[in-house]
């Protein structure tokens, strides 16, 4: 018998609808859990207990996500709540409106509860760039949870949330999901409205779910996907029921192993776990095909030109005039901008603004930005060609398990390379999911390993079907960190 906080969204819904538990009880169980463990994890920047309790009292459990609290990354606006993007420059900012994903979650009966920690403005791979202190990995609090949505991943893994929303620009959902041992889905570009998401890199950003299993991610995507007139990049594509294909077998499914993703440089325990997962897929009836994504080695370079260029433009809005931090009396408007931004932004944000400004500046635009856009087209073409041969691509999510806090914080380039397997997915605009596929034993502790599946644009239903078939025939998703373990079955057998 597992406790209330360890339930999946689907299990919680069943109990809510059977009146075995009330939305208020579910919320209070989370609040007690947060009080008990978040001092260690620091997955939340804030949680508005009173407002959530009020919403829980009036929740309609017959709705698709009725009465289910969902944790929200601190980059998504929820009316009346603080939204800081983990930056000093937005300290005290209260959202005057709901993001479209929040409007849709509320319409589905869910209760947005809690603001999860992140790298400042979603720039980072470890959540160490938060201006409010790092989040810690529930599997080993000496280690990072991944990033940038490290708070969302950690609170789901530590049973401080039933599910969460994050954002993914170059891996910021999938990589922390992998490192914390949960499921994280980056939908296709244009699948989910970004209205009300504070923009980082507008041609790459997508909002997506974190959950304890694949079905829950499908349930959340059902609620938030679809065209929004307030986001011109959201497409008219029909929204299927993303749970509809779950449970189908893998007969005839072809999975591609990109040879460029299996060339060494990956942690041996990660490589072994992923290869075992691939063998497992074969045993489930999938056909494994070697494919090539020939421009893989250029993805990180292209990303750090395009993402920083877009960020330098998007972050120009933080000028100390309409909202956010403002410097003390400056003698003129230029000094006002320079001081406001110097005081408000952290080092990684400054680095990226400068890099983005440089690659767009006169004399360098063609050499860097325009060239990166062309190589990006070639990366997209790699995926288009691969998907002529296979239904999905299978590879590691992260080249290594969680590293220790402070290990890379002064080496930006090395930190950027943590995203080597996830970045191309955003550049190509396709969808990707990370799910648990084993553990690496490091210094006597089991650290989760994530398997990444990459799907065709707008084929999240098929992608989730493929992920679900693996998940349901393995036990990895049931393993819980020591701090959350409830039963003997959850503790047993961490060997790959």
């Amino acid at each position, binding site marked *: 018998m597992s406790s209330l906080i360890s339930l999946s969204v689907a299990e919680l819904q069943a109990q809510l609808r059977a009146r075995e538990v009330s939305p208020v009880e579910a919320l209070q169980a989370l609040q007690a859990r947060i009080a008990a463990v978040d001092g260690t994890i620091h997955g939340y920047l804030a949680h508005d207990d009173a407002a959530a309790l009020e919403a829980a009292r009036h929740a309609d459990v017959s709705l698709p996500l009725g009465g289910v609290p969902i944790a929200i990354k601190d980059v998504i606006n929820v009316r009346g709540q603080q939204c800081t993007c983990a930056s000093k420059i937005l300290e005290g900012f*209260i959202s005057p*409106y709901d993001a479209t994903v929040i409007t849709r979650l509320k319409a589905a009966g869910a209760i947005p509860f809690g603001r999860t920690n992140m790298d400042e403005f979603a720039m980072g791979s470890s959540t160490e760039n938060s201006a409010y202190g790092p989040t810690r990995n529930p599997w080993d609090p000496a280690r990072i949870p991944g990033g940038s949505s490290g708070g969302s991943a950690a609170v789901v893994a530590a049973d401080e949330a039933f599910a969460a929303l994050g954002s993914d620009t170059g891996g910021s959902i999938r990589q922390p999901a992998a490192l914390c041992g949960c499921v994280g889905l980056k939908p296709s*570009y244009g699948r989910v409205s970004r209205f009300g998401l504070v923009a980082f890199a507008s041609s790459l950003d997508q909002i997506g779910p974190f959950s304890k299993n694949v079905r829950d991610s499908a349930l959340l995507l059902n609620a938030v996907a679809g065209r929004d007139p307030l986001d011109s990049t959201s497409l008219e594509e029909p929204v299927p029921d993303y749970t509809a294909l779950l449970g189908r077998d893998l007969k005839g499914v072809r999975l591609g192993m990109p040879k460029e993703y299996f060339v060494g440089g990956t942690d041996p325990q990660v490589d072994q776990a992923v290869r075992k997962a691939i063998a497992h897929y074969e045993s489930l009836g999938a056909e494994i095909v070697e494919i090539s994504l020939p421009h893989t080695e250029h993805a990180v370079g292209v990303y750090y030109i395009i993402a920083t260029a877009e960020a330098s433009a998007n972050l120009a809005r933080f000028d100390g005039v309409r909202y956010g931090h403002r410097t003390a009396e400056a003698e003129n408007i230029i000094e006002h901008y320079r001081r406001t931004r110097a005081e408000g932004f952290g080092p990684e944000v400054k680095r990226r603004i400068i890099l983005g400004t440089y690659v767009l500046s006169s004399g360098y635009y063609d050499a860097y930005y325009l060239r*990166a856009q062309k190589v990006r087209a070639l990366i997209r073409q790699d995926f288009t060609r691969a998907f002529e041969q296979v239904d999905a691509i299978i590879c590691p999510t992260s080249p290594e398990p969680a590293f220790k806090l402070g290990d890379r914080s002064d080496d930006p380039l090395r930190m950027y390379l943590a995203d080597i397997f996830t970045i191309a997915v955003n550049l190509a605009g396709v969808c990707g999911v990370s799910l648990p596929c084993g553990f690496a034993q490091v210094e006597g502790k089991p650290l989760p390993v994530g398997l990444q599946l990459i799907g065709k644009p707008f084929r999240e239903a098929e992608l989730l079907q493929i992920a679900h078939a693996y998940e349901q025939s393995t036990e990895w998703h049931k393993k819980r960190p020591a701090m959350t373990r409830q039963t003997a079955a959850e503790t047993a057998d961490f060997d790959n």
Partner: protein
Amino acid sequence: MNSEFDVRYTADLARLHLSEEEAAKFQAQLSQVLEYVEKLKTVDVSGVEPMAHANPVFNVVREDEPRDWFTPKEALANAPREANGLFAVPKVIE
């Protein structure tokens, strides 16, 4: 090493003041990143159209119809300084 990259000049373009320490550190770190991205120059991009984003949609517009949005009070609610229902800024014109 990218000899042309000048962190102070670029930070000025971005309206960002840097301390001496930041300037030295970022100059070194970003030069390293720029050196890394140099390898894009080895890719043959002749005849390749630049890609701005993933989906083939262009010039999406909607009807410009009035709708309920912020009141002036709501719009000013997060302003660090306001005066007479307006955002206040340092003097711009001499």
